[in-house]
């Protein structure tokens, strides 16, 4: 069992938890993830390591409440325990040798972009951060990003905070103004990563994306998380989750992520009803 040390709400749909998991904390690095299971009949879901503290033996996770399992997870309070918590999984992000990098985070993807930006910053890179949200109520991790970046740009779909528009608008402006990035790292919803890649390909800038396919074991034994990268089959849990964005087949990845949509919708509705009943 893995005890929740701290829990806080970052916005109405995003929660941060600090979890006691010494074995994971010992080796975790930016870009890696964990798999957790909330209860005995629960499913295994992957979440990125948002931060770690080797001395305290803790791992920070940040998750968006999107369906049954994240709702159940969000029901747990400080002092409660998560049933299973395994990691660190996947390959760490490659941050060595990069001098000037643009890190782009979309929505809750910012939780994954943050540790990568932090690792780059600690490695001496000049970090530009662009974060995008649907509206001002959903903005997360502003202070955290400020601490690890030289420049930060905030955009929102509806213009309620920062610049109105998409992360790609800001990126294109920066490139057009003559900013020269060694690499762009984009983390967020698949359509966002796809459009960032289409843009950077035009300018010939190497772009890394962190993929988020459906996973079960997370150790390479099932291939549920497989992707086409440069025409080859890759397993995101062991070969990734970071890949060269210009080689990823995003349309296939989007199709695969929708495989259980009906089941997920039913499970979410049932869980919503359950919690409403409990409250009433």
């Amino acid at each position: 069992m893995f005890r929740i040390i701290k829990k806080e709400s970052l916005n109405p749909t995003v929660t941060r938890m600090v979890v006691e998991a010494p074995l994971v904390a010992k080796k975790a690095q930016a870009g890696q993830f964990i798999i957790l299971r909330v209860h005995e009949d629960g499913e295994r879901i992957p979440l990125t390591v948002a931060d770690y503290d080797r001395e305290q033996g803790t791992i920070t996770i940040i998750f968006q409440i999107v369906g049954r399992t994240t709702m159940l997870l969000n029901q747990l309070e400080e002092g409660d325990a998560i049933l299973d918590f395994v990691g660190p999984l996947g390959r760490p992000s490659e941050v060595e040798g990069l001098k000037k990098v643009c890190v782009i985070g979309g929505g809750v993807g910012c939780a994954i972009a943050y540790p990568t930006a932090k690792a780059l910053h600690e490695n001496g890179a000049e970090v530009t951060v662009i974060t995008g949200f649907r509206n001002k109520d959903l903005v997360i991790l502003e202070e955290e990003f400020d601490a690890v970046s030289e420049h930060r740009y905030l955009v929102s779909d509806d213009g309620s905070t920062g610049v109105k528009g998409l992360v790609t608008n800001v990126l294109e402006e920066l490139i057009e103004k003559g900013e020269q990035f060694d690499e762009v790292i984009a983390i967020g919803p698949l359509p966002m990563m796809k459009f960032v890649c289409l843009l950077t390909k035009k300018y010939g800038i190497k772009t890394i994306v962190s993929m988020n396919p459906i996973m079960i074991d997370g150790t390479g034994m099932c291939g549920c998380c497989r992707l086409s990268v440069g025409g080859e089959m890759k397993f995101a849990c062991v070969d990734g989750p970071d890949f060269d964005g210009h080689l990823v087949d995003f349309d296939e990845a989007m199709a695969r992520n929708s495989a259980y949509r009906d089941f997920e919708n039913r499970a979410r509705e049932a869980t919503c009803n359950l919690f409403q009943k409990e409250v009433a």
Partner: protein
Amino acid sequence: MPNMSLKKVEMPVQDPMVRRSNFEEVALGYTEEQAREEAERCLHCPTKPCVSGCPVSVNIPDFIKAVKEGEFEKAYHIIHETSSLPAVCGRVCPQETQCEHECVRGKKGESVAIGRLERFVADWYREHADEEVLKPQENGHRVAVVGAGPAGLTCAGDLAKKGYHVSVFEALHVAGGVLMYGIPEFRLPKKIVQHEIDGLRKMGVDIETNAVIGRCESVDDLFDQGYEAVFIGSGAGLPNFMNMPGENLKGVYSANEFLTRCNLMKAYREGVDTPIQHAKRAVIVGGGNVAMDAARCAKRLGVEEVTIVYRRSMEELPARKEEVEHAMEEGIEFRLLTNPVRVLGNEEGWVSGIECVKMELGEPDASGRRRPVEIKGSNFTIDIDCMIMAIGTSPNPLIRSTTEGLETNRKGCLITDEDGKTTREGVYAGGDAVTGAATVILAMGAGKTGAAAIDEYIQAKDKAA
């Protein structure tokens, strides 16, 4: 006078029409009377050919004699001397190619039902005996085992019996390996696996789940923590695909994924959070036990048409005969001498069919089996909405890629000598991690060999010191 019946005493089974819609065990096991009657068929040959056919050398005639005399507890202890998981082996061993293949009675008529008797004894003991597992006296030495499948568990059990303090590290959230995620409930009830694992725990074996060696700790870390030897029993869990167009369509599963969702995550049960596709027409590609398991699980999930597509003929089908018969009784279709060449999809990215080609058998290949050859122009399409690839697995590269000095062959299997010694001092390995995908009992045999070699290694070091 022994029972000279040419046939085995039949074992009751669930009716095929009933069992194809539930996950309960198909074979129901012998009663005490049936077991004693079958035990009477053993001739107690002085040469004991059956024992030589058993990878862990169970003393078969002696345990059968005890069954004949109604001394079931004694029978259990005889088996347990050499086998750590008799309730499992009695169910899943391919006895027809092992112990029962050597049985003298098999020369004329059917061999003695050694597997069914082993299963009976283990089940009887679990249900009747007052089990007090004695914790052996610790000898002060620590050994780490990577992977809680049949190889690792057997190795851990043997070492614990000798007094070693053993820690087993398992990546998944439960121990058991393929016994838990792969082999379905209807062939091997999970509570039986857990019972046998609990027995190991009572003997003092630590089993740490959620521990992925190679990520959270390396093999070198284990030595740093004071383990004097490491046994790697990490299996061959990496699924193979055919690299044909359309394999990433929705509805295309590896057998490992399909079976993990089904068996480990219990996706067939109402109210469980892990989803699984409820298809109408499924094709399973492959002809091994894994293919049979996947096909029979699909049937039980309500798939109307389940078809096995296999590139050779019935003769070469590698699955156990009993499983193939059970599959056929349950209504699973077989399309033999057929090989898929392309997966077809619809506009939403779901699989809608597979294009196959007919095969004929040519000259024998290196493995001695006749090589299947495509019949040009024989292509045809099967309409499906689910496809399960059961064409084998390879060892996971995680441990070899994070451990220096551990050599592998070109298939990624760890290289060991006959005692299970790897190219790294103090590191032993066995099971599918060494052989590639094989059987439960061979993995157990390798775990046994590894445990003996580790004991010898540590004792020798002790003397030298």
